[in-house]
């Protein structure tokens, strides 16, 4: 399928380096997600009850 529509040559070097750069710039986001996951786990483990409804929503979007 992508052969049909990929009229644009993405360039091998550009594809390879974009993955590296995306990895670098995603680090803070992944780190933050990891932290909030740990926080959730700790809260869940300590309270043995469902997390309070005021828990902040989490997603992986840059803010």
């Amino acid at each position, binding site marked *: *399928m*992508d052969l*049909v*529509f*990929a*009229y*644009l040559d*993405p*360039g*091998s*070097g*550009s*594809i*390879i*380096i*974009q*993955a*590296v*750069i*995306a*990895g*670098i*710039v*995603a680090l803070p*986001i*992944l780190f933050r*997600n990891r932290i909030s996951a740990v926080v959730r786990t700790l809260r869940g483990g300590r309270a043995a009850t469902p997390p309070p409804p005021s828990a902040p929503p989490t997603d*992986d*979007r*840059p803010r």
Partner: protein
Amino acid sequence: MSAPRPGQGLVREPGSWRDPAGFVYRRDGAIHRQIAPVFAAEWEAYLASGLHDRLVTRGAVLPFEDAPIADALDPATAWRVIRPEMLPVISWPWEWCPGQLRDAALLTLDLALEALDAGFTLRDATPYNVQLRGTRPVHLDALSFERRAPDAPWGPYRQFCRTFLAPLALMTERDPRLGLLLRSFLEGIPLDLAVRLLPRRTLLRLGLATHLHLHARAIGRNADGKGAEARAVRLSETRLRALLGNLRGTVAGLRWEPEGTEWADYADRTSYSDAATAAKERIVRGMAEAVAPTVAWDLGANTGRYSAIVAETGAHVVAWDIDPGAVERHHRALMASGRERITPLLLDLTDPSPALGWGLTERASFLERANAELILALALVHHLAIGRGVPVEMIATFLAGLAPNLVIEWLPHEDPMVRRLLAGRHDMAGGIRGNVAGWPLFREEAFRGIFADAGWEIVERAPIEGSGRVLYRMRRSGRA
């Protein structure tokens, strides 16, 4: 006259040959696009997702109507035909000020991010998919969206960096005139060239260091033989979102402040009184109302004082100016005011955009795009004649080739602006300046004769009280 046959009045757009999903053509002047069967599933998915409606509603993507298959240029290979909204102005990115290129880049990235929310991705990311509606960018190409394959990298990353990020960084971090490089590199500025021209301090900014400097090195290293490695690359949605978000932040940080350029403060130091300015505004408004153009081109518009007046009469106005500072200021003022129907663009009248690209037909020249019914040439001719040495006869003939109506300002040699221009031309001191009153440009009768010889018929003459200047409205007589 024979009855219309299918195919009559059908002209394929010469710039529309890259994308196998469909192509653009004109049917009796109206823009159409036929979509190939190969793109059917993607097109249905895009429309069904609601993404298109959302993007059109917020003015980000150009709307279209469905047209019958019988209207296709080639019905045998058409699966659908659409009729996109027509725009009164077509411009090329080297005619944009830094702020306009920046806004177009931000629009493109916002579309990529919003598409991602809906499970789609942008297939291409180039300023040629963007036009200015007023001074606000709009994406033209509804066929740019396709469903994103799981963990697919972003195909147009290199294209975005070459056609948006590199020229914008060169304009804001080095010199706004470097936007003209896009005229020489239609596929975008090669990144190895861009990084050689950028100041070294751009290495200290994460976005420019990665997307341009590091990227340029990677392209050099991976020119051949890395196809298999590239095919294996996977990019999670989180990482792609981070990449697009970082590009967005990088672009948003590239701003150019236009202080100190040649013309940017020109409107603030014009050479005649407030009363004369008010009189000139009143006359220009009356002359524009008499012509009632759909499209008007204001040549040497500066920051658009008179473009605004003509736009108020209902016209779409292209406010051309040679100075990036004036165009940038005009663009910002229009964005802040929310005023529509005025498009500021960059133009050197002594070197307007030529026809470019494959067969010299891909990107239409300045003249090929001339669709105005009215040209404004206010306080312009003496700049071309004195500053650039263009003979008045050639100016009159050139303007006659642009539009059927003209509003033009004549200045006497005593005018302070003329004096200032002459003072800057020491080479004219002995000759023309010695007998400046005898120069045809400054003898009103001779000036009129030159324009009559070039095919202009004088319809209206209106002196601007308190300035010695005269406004003329002329009509192309079709005689010369």
